[in-house]
């Protein structure tokens, strides 16, 4: 049995909105959201707590958000400033450990097992990190401290905003009993509904199901559920997480009526993607991909059905156009969103083409 691990999950409180409020204190007490404009069919990326009281949520369409809160102040996202804040936070983490797994700009796991800071107390380290973020970056963060990633992430949500929560190894069983299964990793609406049908709404109820039965019903996910509902999670904190995909997408203010319109919209999107791809570190000095990149096209039709098509080959305009034709034929109706990108795979030997 290995040493009991100590994992901290740090999660900034309504990060984009927090950065905006830090820079424009006048916005502090009004309902504020960062997102795209309603007339361009934008969605809410983040909103502050006053906005949440009106029922505004992230990923909600801006139109709906404005219906719920007509006084909502909407600001467009400024990723440059968010990235800077994120880097400043990352620098603070590095004062404690280099075993950091960033999940996004505002969220990360830290493995602080065996560190001597704060007399080895992970709770005190989390406390210190949070006060430094508040002092040096000017925003608040919440933390969860637990023996694994699953529990740390659940715990960081427990005292949000600007709070922290510890789950010690001895408390796991009691904590899990009351936990709704919907809090587990990989359990969305559909799985939660299936679990509810099985009479498993809390982890305690799910624990009554034997491993074989769960695997029978859910496949691989069943084994994961079996472990998760007992608070078991062996996943390591991975320092360099390999990017699995890179893409850009665009929701159009007006639906693209037909294939021709989609093809006409494609070059702008592909240029945008190419610029991101070039900056991503996935390409070398001479523009050769350092990883295997499989071109992918995503299409969302006006009836909200969506499809993705991918193929081997270089992510060029002509490949994307061929994929778009293929994908569009599946729905053959107006399109509200197009995305182009690549699925990235580990770099291996490369197989050059006969016709280069």
């Amino acid at each position, binding site marked *: 049995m290995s040493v009991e691990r100590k994992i901290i999950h740090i999660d900034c409180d309504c990060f984009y909105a927090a950065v905006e409020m830090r820079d424009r204190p006048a916005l502090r007490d009004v309902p504020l959201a960062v997102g795209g404009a309603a007339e361009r069919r934008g969605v809410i990326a983040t909103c502050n707590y006053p906005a949440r009281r009106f029922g505004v949520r992230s990923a909600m369409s801006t139109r709906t958000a404005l219906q719920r809160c007509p006084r909502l102040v909407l600001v467009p996202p400024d990723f440059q400033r968010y990235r800077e804040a994120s880097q400043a936070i990352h620098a603070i983490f590095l004062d404690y450990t280099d075993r950091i797994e960033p999940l996004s700009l505002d969220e990360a796991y830290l493995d602080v097992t065996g560190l001597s800071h704060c007399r080895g107390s992970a709770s005190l380290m989390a406390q210190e990190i949070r006060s430094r973020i508040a002092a040096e970056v000017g925003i608040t963060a919440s933390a969860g401290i637990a023996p694994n990633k699953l529990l740390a992430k659940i715990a960081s949500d427990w005292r949000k905003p600007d709070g922290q929560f510890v789950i010690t190894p001895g408390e796991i069983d009691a904590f899990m009993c009351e936990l709704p299964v919907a809090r587990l990793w990989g359990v969305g609406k559909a799985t939660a509904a299936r679990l509810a049908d099985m009479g498993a709404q809390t982890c305690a109820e799910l624990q009554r199901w034997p491993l074989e039965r769960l695997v029978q019903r859910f496949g691989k996910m069943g084994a994961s559920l079996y472990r998760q509902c007992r608070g078991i999670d062996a996943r390591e904190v991975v320092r360099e997480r390999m990017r699995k995909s890179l893409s850009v997408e665009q929701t159009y203010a007006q639906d693209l009526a037909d294939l021709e319109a989609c093809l006409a919209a494609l070059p702008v999107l592909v240029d945008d993607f190419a610029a991101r791809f070039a900056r991503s570190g996935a390409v070398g000095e001479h523009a050769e991909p350092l990883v295997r990149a499989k071109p992918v096209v995503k299409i969302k039709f006006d009836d909200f059905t969506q499809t993705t098509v991918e193929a*081997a080959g270089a992510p060029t305009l002509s490949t994307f156009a061929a994929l778009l034709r*293929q994908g569009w034929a599946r729905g053959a109706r107006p399109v509200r969103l197009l995305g182009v990108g690549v699925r990235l795979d580990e770099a291996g*030997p490369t*197989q*050059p083409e*006969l*016709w280069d």
Partner: protein
Amino acid sequence: MQLLQAERDALLKPLATVTGIVERRHTLPILSNVLIRKAGDALSFTGTDLEIQIESRQSEGFSGDDFAITVSAKKFSDILRAIPDKTVVSLEEADGRLTLKAGKSRFQLQTLPAGDFPTLAVDTNLKATLRMPQGQLKALLGRVQYAMAHQDIRYYLNGLFVVTEGSHLKLVATDGHRLGFASTELSASFDKNEVILPRKTILELYKLLGDVDDEVAIDIAGNQVKFSFGTIVIHSKVVDGKFPDYNRVIPQNNDKLLTIDRTTLLSSLQRAAILSNEKFRGVRLVLTEGLLKILCNNNEQEEAQEEVEVAYQGAPLDIGFNIQYLLDVLTNLSAETLHFSFGDVNSSVLVTIPDNEHFKYIVMPMRI
């Protein structure tokens, strides 16, 4: 009304011939059916996927009235297969249902009207008719068909490029990384014709051709090719697209010549392949004077090494390949000895049969 009475095998054989291309699930339900038609004393079975149509016809004096009916190809052949051979089977039709009786078994199947069965409109713009022994065409296809692309976005590579030029028939297949070329002399001379035949047509044709001297006739029309042999007629649409210029990728100046026994190299590669990376399938060939070393390793850092003594006098070379591309050519040829001509580590290798201009195989190396 009784349609037909015959021994099981007299139905199953022609049926199996046409069902290979029938898709089980299709948006058009009738495409999962087989068309059974009797006209005069000829009985025919037809299957189609709208790209390819295969008909198998027998004219062995079937009595009774003419009829045409369509029924699920899968269910019909599953039933026939499950019946002991030599059993006499009778087919009857009533109220749009087909009843199959065999001994004490009885099956009722749904049918769809034969009039709704889509048959390819025959392209009458005939450009050339080639004739050769079936066995010869089968051997020719066998030398190149494995190099066709599969579900490539460059759809024109998912097929076989067929060229007639003078008295030559040339077949070219490529997936963009390797290319197979095979040609043969024809007994007559033709204008230049170029068509791309779909992968599925080629695989089915290869399966159905016999290793016999009986003739196959190939009718090349504008957008269709028809193969007639024995009791079988295959109509196939051609792929609309431009096949890449294969002459451009045949290396001309490769100076490092390796002559090697095919089966020796094949066995060595098959052993080494056990430890090649499952995903990338890389193999390293290290050539020095008189010696070929074959090296494979996988993700688990396991390693295989093979040594073959060879008559090689060229400059040393350390080059990587997708091992499957090499295994493919070695397993699909029967020649005893092969020539490999290498250039540098970044240029393609040319595989040929000594004293034979009719076969070429080109593989791009892999950067390992």
